[in-house]
């Protein structure tokens, strides 16, 4: 018997022995239990939760305002090296040209290669990315890893700017997993619908390891800005 077979055999026997002693429940249906929703105004709920988690939110009405805000934040944080992701919204804003014209050093994720990518990731002062979803109930950003959206962009630089649209808000955490499941119809199996890394970000990096006192920015970004555009 291989170690795998021996392992599973032991578990099988233990399951049978233990099941005899009690009732075996079927996998329960949730029937809506635990669904919180986000009330009549998901954006308001997101704002409350996201700010409670220590995140910053800027509501903006158009592309010009968004670009101006990005520049303003970069100047406030006094940083130079910018790591720029790419998604349809970021492409529309054409941040690369806008920032380069103002003398800033912009590294576009698309221009990087896997072999050399760690260095610019570690060196960047600020990461600018899109998001895939926002969860109103929990005040979270949802980011799928992809060639144009590496894990590092929202992780390694000390400041993260996430640019989102209002229509990307889902009310409840359960809705996200419903949406994630929906991909299965397009992709054949649920597993391949998930990216290699799906991350929910709820505020800046935190630790309470010294006397349970909150300190931000211990490993991940200490500051996270969400720029929310009207759709």
């Amino acid at each position: 018997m291989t170690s795998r077979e021996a392992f599973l055999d032991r578990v099988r026997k233990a399951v049978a022995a233990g099941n005899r002693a009690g009732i075996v429940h079927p996998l329960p249906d949730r029937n809506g239990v635990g669904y919180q929703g986000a009330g009549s105004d998901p954006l308001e709920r997101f704002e409350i939760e996201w700010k409670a988690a220590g995140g910053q939110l800027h509501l903006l009405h158009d592309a010009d305002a968004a670009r101006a805000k990005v520049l303003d934040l970069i100047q406030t944080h006094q940083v130079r090296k910018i790591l720029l992701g790419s998604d349809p919204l970021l492409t529309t804003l054409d941040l690369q040209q806008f920032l380069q014209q103002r003398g800033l050093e912009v590294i576009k994720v698309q221009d990087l290669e896997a072999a050399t990518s760690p260095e610019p990731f570690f060196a960047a002062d600020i990461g600018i990315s899109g998001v895939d979803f926002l969860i109103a109930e929990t005040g979270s950003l949802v980011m799928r890893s992809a060639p144009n959206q590496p894990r590092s962009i929202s992780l390694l630089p000390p400041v993260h700017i996430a640019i989102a649209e209002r229509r990307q808000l889902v009310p409840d955490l359960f809705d996200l997993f419903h949406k994630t499941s929906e991909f299965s119809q397009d992709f054949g199996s649920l597993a391949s619908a998930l990216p290699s890394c799906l991350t929910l970000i709820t505020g800046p990096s935190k630790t309470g390891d010294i006397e349970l006192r909150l300190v931000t920015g211990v490993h991940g970004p200490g500051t996270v800005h969400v720029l929310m555009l009207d759709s």
Partner: protein
Amino acid sequence: MNDYARHEHHDFPGAVHQALADEPLQAALVRLTGTLMAGNRRGYAALADSDRLRDHAKQIKEHTLAHLDNYLEQLEASVVKLGGKVHWAASAEDARAIIVDIARQSSCKRAVKSKSMTSEEIHLNRALEKAGLEVTETDFGEFILQVAGERPSHLVAPAVHHTRESVARVLSKYVGDDLPDDPKTLALTGRRILRQEFHQADLGITGANFAVAETGTVVLVTNEGNGRLTTTCPRVHVALMGMEKVIPRLADLPVFLKLLARAATGQTLSVYTTLITGPRRPGELDGPEEFHLVILDNGRSRILAGPFRESLECIRCGACLNACPVYRRIGGHAYGGVYSGPIGSILTPLYDSVSNNPELPHASSLCGACQAACPVKINIPRMLIGLREVQHHHRTSTWEHLAYKLWSLVLRKPRLYRLALRFARMLLGPLADDGWLKRLPGPGAGWTHARDFPVPASRSFRDRWRELYAKKEK
């Protein structure tokens, strides 16, 4: 003096005495009440339906354990389909050998670890270091403990027994500089040191808060982001999970996510919830090229077969520790094992042995605060009583047997009971001091060592009732 913070031990009474006299520890434990314990209550209160959601979570766990063999096989198939590798470890020794072997095969030299109690359970670091690897704990609390050479004392706040002054001392010595004892400076020093380690590491080792059978997804929940860095920077990722961490469907995950952080700290969600589904895909710029999942038994199948199966439902949130009046007086190191608090009082005797840990099932007032705080409502008091029963069956003292026999006989015969009571009154009355016995003679001395014993009332309730009733009738 024994150093209970460094070594696992079986000296519960000795460790308790030391803990009670440790003033910084006592101050640290008081802080738990106002922060994590209050957070747990606030968290549940803020979640509509939290009670029913906890029942639902428990039912998912019960179902999973009742079909654990099937779900483990499904998990394996899903991981393999993604290009990951699954390893089966029957014991701690197997798990250590497997992980050392992965490191060798992939020529890894430097490992970074995100916080994992399961890796503590199998004493992984020592084995990796013996095999020539450099290992760094990257959870800030765990890093402090690694430098100090200590064990974690809490499931989610491992360095809770430290003060800012002691952390400053530990880190100052490490960096060879005099650091101020301000938490922000200390944490950012940690960031600087550990960022270098992430840059150089080629092996990332994590635990798993959950593993989804249907998708092969390993879920990591952290506040600092070290779990993300561990699964982003090194080229090899090894996830070590106790086999009970599997859940059936992706749709079951949000049920647990909604409860875990609320139970642990009162947060709606922890800062980072990371779902790892296989290794890096083509075109991606970061993430590990290799993904290994090590599934650990190490005594769990024995527990699964018996009356303490419910203990395998634990999601390691630490809520029962914060709620427990015993843990909040003695801290985590006193319990002696890897897992502490009420759940540790069950897990340590089960994993290690009941006879090695005879005091742990009694380290509880059975008040039920642990169960009330538990996100999956584990009936910890029931299991503690169950362990006491196991001890009773193993008991060898004939005197104790005889005493319980006599006790049970007297309780079953009202006339004998009344007689015994009258006898006790006669015998103990003269020894009383202001209605209390401060010191009992002979075998009773243990009882009055730390508390007084009440003198039986001069008249029994039955006598008084009879009299009152007679008066009323008149």
